[in-house]
């Protein structure tokens, strides 16, 4: 394994602030208690991805996994901490003939392609704009990229609405590949597709990884798929990482109570006549998370310390991390 990780997050936090507007602030002057609303979407998160690795990122609503994805893809800037892609700050990176380091594949195949652009423009615009190909080589570059993603290059003149959901997702992947990224962030990239199409796209991701040596951050709520494709998995809850482990170990023997509950609730094909419901309570709102360990109100093993003190993500075995006082 090469030395330096290709993706590194150090103590990264992302806060979304909704400031009280002018009227509310005026009211505050006379004693009303309007506060700025702060959502700690990502709260002091650190991890690395090695080159060629597939890192799975799982969690439920409000856990911050999408935000982490956007931070890695440089669509959002961190409020605190540092994101490093290939050792550098991505906000300083200038796109050039060598391409872009990170690209994102989006969830919704219907809104992630510009409906007014033809496929060849969707795929070919950025490489041309950044000087990666010359105008006379553009058509070939686009055709080769489309073919690699399982699309017939003859359809490059069509508009997105003329394609099916699975094909649109392939177009999105082609658009990303056209700028020769080394890292792909897949943000629920298959969730909106039918089951049989999901299999096609998952296979495509795995093929591309073998052919091009890509690194993946695979964000999904579908634990079955994450288990299938990932080398390592991070579990997030309300903005924090609660567990990190190699995929096999995580699914075979989860340590954190939330991971255990999550895996216990997931329907799998081989589990018949499940007795559901092992987790009580609702997922708290990110606007008002519980104190200490965010999971303590729903945790069957919680003790007093869990409500008072935030657990640190620490190593519990070689290659395994968990954020729990009791593990």
């Amino acid at each position: 394994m090469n030395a330096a990780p290709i993706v590194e997050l150090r103590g990264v936090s992302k806060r979304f602030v909704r400031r009280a507007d002018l009227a509310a602030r005026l009211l505050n002057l006379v004693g009303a208690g309007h506060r700025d609303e702060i959502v700690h979407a990502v709260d002091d998160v650190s991890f690395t991805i090695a080159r060629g690795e597939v890192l799975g990122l799982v969690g439920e609503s409000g856990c911050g996994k999408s935000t982490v994805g956007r931070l890695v893809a440089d669509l959002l800037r961190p409020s605190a901490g540092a994101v490093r892609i290939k050792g550098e700050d991505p906000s300083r990176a200038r796109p050039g003939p060598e391409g872009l380091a990170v690209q994102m594949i989006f969830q919704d195949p219907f809104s992630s392609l510009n409906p007014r652009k033809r496929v060849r423009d969707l795929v070919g615009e950025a490489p041309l704009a950044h000087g990666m190909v010359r105008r006379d080589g553009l058509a070939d570059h686009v055709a080769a990229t489309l073919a690699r993603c399982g699309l017939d290059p003859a359809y490059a003149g069509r508009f997105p609405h003329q394609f099916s959901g699975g094909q649109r997702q392939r177009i999105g992947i082609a658009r990303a590949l056209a700028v020769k990224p080394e890292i792909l962030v897949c943000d629920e990239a298959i969730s909106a597709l039918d089951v049989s199409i999901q299999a096609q796209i998952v296979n495509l991701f795995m093929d591309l990884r073998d052919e091009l040596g890509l690194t993946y951050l695979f964000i999904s709520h579908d634990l079955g798929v994450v288990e299938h494709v990932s080398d390592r998995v991070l579990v997030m809850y309300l903005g924090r990482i609660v567990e990190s482990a190699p995929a096999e170990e995580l699914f075979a023997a989860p340590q954190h109570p939330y991971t255990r509950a999550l895996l216990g609730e997931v329907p799998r094909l081989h589990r018949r006549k499940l007795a559901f419901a092992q987790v009580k309570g609702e997922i708290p709102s990110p606007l008002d998370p519980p104190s200490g360990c965010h999971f303590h109100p729903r945790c069957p093993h919680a003790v007093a310390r869990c409500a008072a003190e935030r657990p640190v993500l620490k190593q519990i075995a070689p290659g395994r991390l968990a954020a729990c006082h009791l593990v």
Partner: protein
Amino acid sequence: MNDVVLSVRDLTTGFPTPAGEIRAVDGVSLDVVRGRVLGLVGESGSGKSVTGFSIMGLVDPPGRITGGRILFEGQDLRGLDERAWRAIRGARIAMVFQDPMMTLNPVFRIGTQMIEAVKAHTRADTRTARARARDALGRVGIPAPDERLDAYPHQLSGGMRQRVAIAIALLHGPQVLIADEPTTALDVTIQGQILAEVQTLCRESGTGLVWITHDLAVVAGLADEVAVMYAGRIVEQGRVDDVLDRPLHPYTRGLIDSVPQPGARKRRLAQIPGRMPSPLELPPGCAFAPRCDRADAACARPPAFSQVRAEHSARCVHPLDDVPA
């Protein structure tokens, strides 16, 4: 199996379009049994949702049921007028949708809506109705039901709203509950809670449940029987263990193989080539033949739905019948 509460026979539902009549549901037959769960599985375009709407009489014109019978409590629901339907819908047969806001009106409080639902089918004064509503909320596992009754839908989380929708559906103890992908949009842990509640409720009250979904894994965990739909037809039907462990129809096999299994990590998933045909472009014979590696000339004629094993049927002339060794 004489506890069949609802029996659908050869149901066909069509939608006229400028390009011709689309048969969204084509000759579907199924039975709903008291206290048991039937999973209706299919991908988008398979007709599973339209089947549910047809049973409830909720198909919007110009679409309409063009054939078949829906036998419930000794009568054919197809022939009913709107007044008779209203007596049945919500009281004897109920439905829950993927989006709870299809059941809940955003501008009324939960309590108001539930009381209205109670009064629609029983003569009760407001106080009694409210008490019944409160009980119903408690039964679906909603804490502090009195407060919830005074809340508006937007003040509740998605999971709560769906639970309220289920509570409303079960208010009058229906014989049949049709659930159309109610947990697809919910988080895993919340889905688990709702599945648990639904399981318990149906077992206790003897309601027959039809669970419509694209998620085979949910069906595996929840259902007793499963019917697989493709292009408007049922292609396989049987007990859950039989269908999932020993599928007969190549499409079912393909669906099962598309789902990642533990223990087969990193291996290529078997994928079904192509995609489901649109209802306007159905091939003349078996709808799945263009994508099937077992297809031959015999598949150019529409295959009949035939029983291949005990309580396990498939619509295929080349079923995946293992020859006992």
